[in-house]
């Protein structure tokens, strides 16, 4: 076993975990935003306000 291996594992581990969490969170928030945009776009033409305006 190498001397000081725990420091190397700690440094690489923290770095890897930080970016893994950051990437997953960014992708999740992008998915949520895109789904909400789609939902709003689908809902808006069906809303009573819009149909009233059309009518």
């Amino acid at each position, binding site marked *: 076993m190498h001397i000081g291996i725990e420091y190397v594992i700690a440094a*690489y581990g923290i770095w890897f975990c930080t970016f893994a969490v950051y990437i997953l969170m*960014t992708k999740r928030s992008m998915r949520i935003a895109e789904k909400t945009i789609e939902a709003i776009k689908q809902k808006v033409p069906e809303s009573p306000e819009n149909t009233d305006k059309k009518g």
Partner: protein
Amino acid sequence: MKKIIIYLELGSILGLLVCGLWIFLKLPVETSQGFPQKIMYLHVPTFIATYLAFFVVFAFSIAYLWKRELMFDQIAKVSAEIGLIFCALLLVTGAIWGRPTWGTYWVWDARLTTTLLLFLIFMGYFLLRMSVKDRDKEARLASVIGIIGCLDIPIIHKSVEWWRTLHQPSTLFKVESGKASPSIPSELLNPLIASIILMMFFYLYLLLLRYKTEKSKEQLNRLIAETQV
């Protein structure tokens, strides 16, 4: 843009993994520092990525103040966010590397203190963004803070030359008899350069991914505002 993000994601992450295998399986253990020297291949590229991220903040903040295009502010904002994460990791990996080599996690040395200052300036940058409600005012003030904050980078870079520090001089650009040259043998230098290049691509991947998310969020806010009207 989606395809570029996927290529950058696969390329940079796989490249960094291969580089990791090269560093841990192929490279010999350095004689003076021993195994903890392997942290250099993470710490130095993180340092370069921090510089790059804040340079992008600097450039796009100037561009925003000049052209007043919201896109420039969005790029500056996401780059500052990524730069802040890189800067935090730079401080953490540096502290971890400092323990076996210097015998301490932290000293109030010029390089470490100015890097901490950079981190705190950009924490303030985000606090400012959160506290201002008007989008244009937020972008304007954040651009000014972004430009001022980036002026710390040349001070960080030169700190090891201007003051007597515990931190070692630059590994890549050690100045000897007027010439800047790497201070490590090529056997150790080549994987370091490869890690730096891959880290830059990784930064670019994060920037595009985060920018796309930011654009979606802005679009969502606009849609919500329109539907409420």
